[in-house]
């Protein structure tokens, strides 16, 4: 088995807020291979965006390593470093803030092409820009070259953001809630575009989202990782995580999501939580962070010991004492 493209080893990230420490990401271990599709899901404050930013190199880790092609991104230099920086790109959530408002689409896309000498001269640059616009389904491309961001719709802006990421031939794209602020009726076409990038260009995608139904659709051929209060609690193939969830939190989430089908959603069985209070990141519960709310709470072991992420049924990795006690 070849080495993973990106590997996270015991990655932690803490923030200092008003003199208090917040552990946003807690001991994450993750391997991503070339061309992988992965979804990180969880609620706000679970650390998925922070993890995405660390993978993209926008935030340093507080401890632990992130390896790109086997090399620690914190210490690589020169050509390796450039390879990493261009190799992992990010598409942001807000289509209204992710493009420079005073640059036309052409200028936005030409800047990285010319800076890194991927193209020389205006004619070649224009040709490549047109190609990129076609890849992201902005056709006919000439209609878009001279447009400013405020003249484009949200979905079109996101496509330009993706085109911009593609200018530097990335191997991996981190899409942080990239479709959440876009109209519902066009989300699927954006996601299909990402899938095409993987199929045709081998570009892997990490989609960070709070929408599990969307994750199920997008990551159907890939994996879903569920995060809770900074930890990865379950990760496995999308099929298995959705059809056979093992971690109690995953089960609760799946049961809580309303569905766009009146009969299905009203008939859904809800799983009750022990407590409805969401713990604050400033005062993380001891042991398993989910124990105060967990319907499968087992007592002392859940309060004292942090469950490790280990192989469980159906090929998924789960961090739960209950699940692991069944395994042994």
């Amino acid at each position, binding site marked *: 088995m070849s080495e993973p493209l990106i590997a996270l080893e015991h990655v932690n990230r803490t923030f200092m807020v008003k003199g208090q420490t917040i552990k946003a990401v807690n001991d994450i271990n993750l391997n991503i291979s070339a061309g992988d599709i992965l979804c990180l899901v969880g*609620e*706000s404050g679970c650390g998925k965006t922070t993890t995405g930013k660390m993978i993209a190199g926008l935030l340093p880790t507080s401890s632990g390593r992130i390896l790109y092609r086997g090399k620690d991104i914190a210490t690589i230099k020169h050509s390796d470093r450039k390879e990493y920086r261009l190799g992992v790109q990010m598409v942001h959530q807000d289509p209204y803030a992710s493009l420079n408002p005073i640059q036309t689409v052409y200028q936005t896309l030409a800047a990285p092409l010319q800076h890194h000498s991927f193209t020389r001269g205006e004619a070649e640059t224009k040709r490549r820009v047109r190609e990129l616009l076609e890849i992201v389904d902005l056709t006919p491309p000439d209609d878009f070259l001279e447009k400013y961001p405020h003249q484009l*719709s*949200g*979905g*079109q802006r996101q496509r330009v953001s993706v085109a911009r990421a593609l200018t530097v031939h990335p191997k991996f794209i981190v899409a942080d809630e990239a479709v959440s602020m876009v*109209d*519902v*009726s*066009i*989300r*699927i*076409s*954006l996601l*299909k575009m990402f899938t095409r990038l993987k199929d045709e260009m081998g570009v892997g995608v990490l989609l960070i989202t*709070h929408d*599990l*139904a*969307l994750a*199920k*659709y997008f990551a*159907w051929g890939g994996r879903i990782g569920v995060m809770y209060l900074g930890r990865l609690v379950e990760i496995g193939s999308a099929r298995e995580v*959705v059809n056979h969830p093992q971690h109690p939190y995953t089960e*609760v*989430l*799946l049961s*809580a*999501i*309303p*569905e*766009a*089908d*009146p*009969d*299905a*959603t*009203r008939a*859904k069985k*809800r799983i009750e*939580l022990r407590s*409805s209070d*969401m713990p604050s990141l400033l005062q993380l519960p001891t042991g398993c962070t989910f124990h105060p709310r967990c319907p499968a709470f087992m007592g002392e072991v859940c309060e004292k010991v942090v469950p490790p992420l280990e192989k469980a049924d159906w090929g998924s990795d789960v961090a739960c004492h209950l699940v692991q006690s069944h395994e042994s």
Partner: protein
Amino acid sequence: MPEPVLSVRDLSIAYQARRGQVQAVRNISFDVERGESVALIGESGSGKTTVGLGLMHLLPTTAKVFGGSVIYRHHVNGSDSTGREIEVLSLKGSNLRQFRWHECAMVFQSALNALNPVLRISEHFIDTAKAHGYLSGYQQTAELQERSLKLLSMVRLDPERVWRSFPHELSGGMRQRVLIALALLLEPQLLILDEPTTALDILTQRNIIDVLKELRQKLGFAMLFISHDLALAAELADRVATVYAGEIIEIGNVRTVFRHPYHPYTIGLIKAVPTLTGDNANLVSVPGSPPDLIQLPTGCKFHPRCPLADDRCRREETKLTEVEAGHKVACWHWTHAREVLKTYQV
């Protein structure tokens, strides 16, 4: 059969913008029956929020109501007879204050910022009651507090703790629930909610949805909520209306609309949302973008994006017509509208 609590007829609202007039709401008509829950579903640029604001007479000064009526009927509790009728759009001053919150209350979209950060929750309740002419004596203050605490526990909050708190001490979901409790303070017969669960986490959303269901059961108010979230409509609504380019293009019972929608836009919208329980095969995206409300296309406003568009669609404006019992649609080709799914395939 009691008459509807709210009857909107041919409501039209437009904003004056630099480039021209934004026709946000065009001839919208619908009813909300007593105790019923109606969802207005639309995406960005559909005009749905303007409808909500218009109903409460809360439009900004740049907006003008160009026509139509909004009739609210007060029902005497416990009986079927209809009390007085109020034309909301012509209310002013103290009558308007009486209408707002007593009869009809609204929970806004940016709920997280709707609370005054320097006032405690208790002061919010007292202020609201005073503003709408409720509070005038010592006894009433005690009564008000009792009722408020009861409402807070009905929305699954710890009443004593929340009563004394400042807004920043509460989470987003808790604040949203406080706003719902606040809205129900004067026992309105109609509650309007604008994007009640947007920007909230899954579990918090679930809480809000369950709270709203319980409250409706216990207090029996009618509900109109405005959202882009189809799943929310599937959970909470008795009837659903889809809004596009300022008009209602389809309206009907929630199950009917979800199972067999007749408008190409509704069809596309429903098939654009992935579900956990469904198989997610054949999900689509609706091509194109919503029209510019300043320069609307001729005829049917959806025709530039519709695979079935023909000359009639381009020329003639569609009208909302009843095609089945309780199910209305505004499309010339509704009988074979499902064909669009083949073209929508991404």
